[in-house]
């Protein structure tokens, strides 16, 4: 059963990764990555890492991918096809520029293949004997102690042995949030555009004709009559 589940999830993970690399439209790439992440979460579950699997689904496939979808929708996907068309025209005209790009692309594929072969050689020729086992002993559901990979186990480790890394990660998140606001924020444009139009709109509302005999709150406290 676990072997069947492993092959399904592993195939899904590799197919999702291939889809991210191959698909033209960035939106479909994001959707392929969501499928990849969910398959990876199943692999984590098979490795008894239930908390990491839950974080993977909630944080990655939930929050981060929604961020990606929003940015893809904001930026639009017309840029790649347009650029490719322009580049193709320029390459045909100049005769050399496009071929350099395709050479680089072929080199990238060759480099990736070589890296994969090297990693697999390292995997096959390793001296680690435990790599061919199913992992260390695991006894689920023991009462009184946290079993491996549960939220209690991870939380215990994070707040005792890895407290410094935990705090550093929280600082990193804070810095990244501030940096994203600074990078993507509107620089000084808010006061000039929306503030001015808002003030003008307010004056226009106050200048509307008022029925005779009615006053404003400003007049009630002795302000100027408008």
């Amino acid at each position, binding site marked *: 059963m676990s072997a069947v589940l492993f092959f399904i999830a592993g195939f899904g993970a590799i197919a999702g990764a291939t889809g991210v690399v191959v698909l033209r439209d960035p939106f479909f790439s994001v959707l392929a990555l969501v499928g990849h992440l969910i398959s990876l979460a199943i692999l984590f579950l098979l490795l008894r890492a239930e908390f990491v699997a839950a974080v993977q689904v909630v944080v990655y496939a939930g929050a981060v991918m929604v961020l990606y979808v929003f940015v893809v929708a*904001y930026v639009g996907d017309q840029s790649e096809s347009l650029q490719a068309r322009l580049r193709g025209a320029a390459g045909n005209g100049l005769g050399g520029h496009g071929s350099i790009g395709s050479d680089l692309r072929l080199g990238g594929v060759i480099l990736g293949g070589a890296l994969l072969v090297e990693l697999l050689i390292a995997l096959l020729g390793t001296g680690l004997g435990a790599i061919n086992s199913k992992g260390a002993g695991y006894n689920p559901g023991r009462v009184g102690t946290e079993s491996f990979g549960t939220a209690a186990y991870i939380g215990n480790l994070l707040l005792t042995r890895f407290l410094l890394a935990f705090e550093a990660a929280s600082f990193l998140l804070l810095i990244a949030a501030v940096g994203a606001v600074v990078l993507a924020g509107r620089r000084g444009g808010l006061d000039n555009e929306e503030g001015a139009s808002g003030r003008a709109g307010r004056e226009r509302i106050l200048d509307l004709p008022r029925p005779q005999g009615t006053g404003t709150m400003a007049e009630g406290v002795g302000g100027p009559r408008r």
Partner: protein
Amino acid sequence: MSIAWYLAVSAIVFSLGVVGVITRRNPLVVLLCLELMLNGANLALVAFSRMWGNGDGQILALIVMTVAACEVCIGLGMIVAIHRRRLPIDVDELRELQG
């Protein structure tokens, strides 16, 4: 399944991420392929954690997820800033720092 199978899947995913980072031109897709590489590393970390029966690898995987979230945050902010300045969304065109 033995741990080596998980490591093989991790190696394949990592290599696919490398190929994507090198060959794709849209910075959004480059960021997605960086995620692929980090996920391949995460899978290897969790597999080794299972192999030794030790939780340290899972903690490192969680920290890697945090770093990936920060990287996505900054990267998407930069893409939005590039888009707002009407610059092309293409890593081959954005070569001003290169001189």
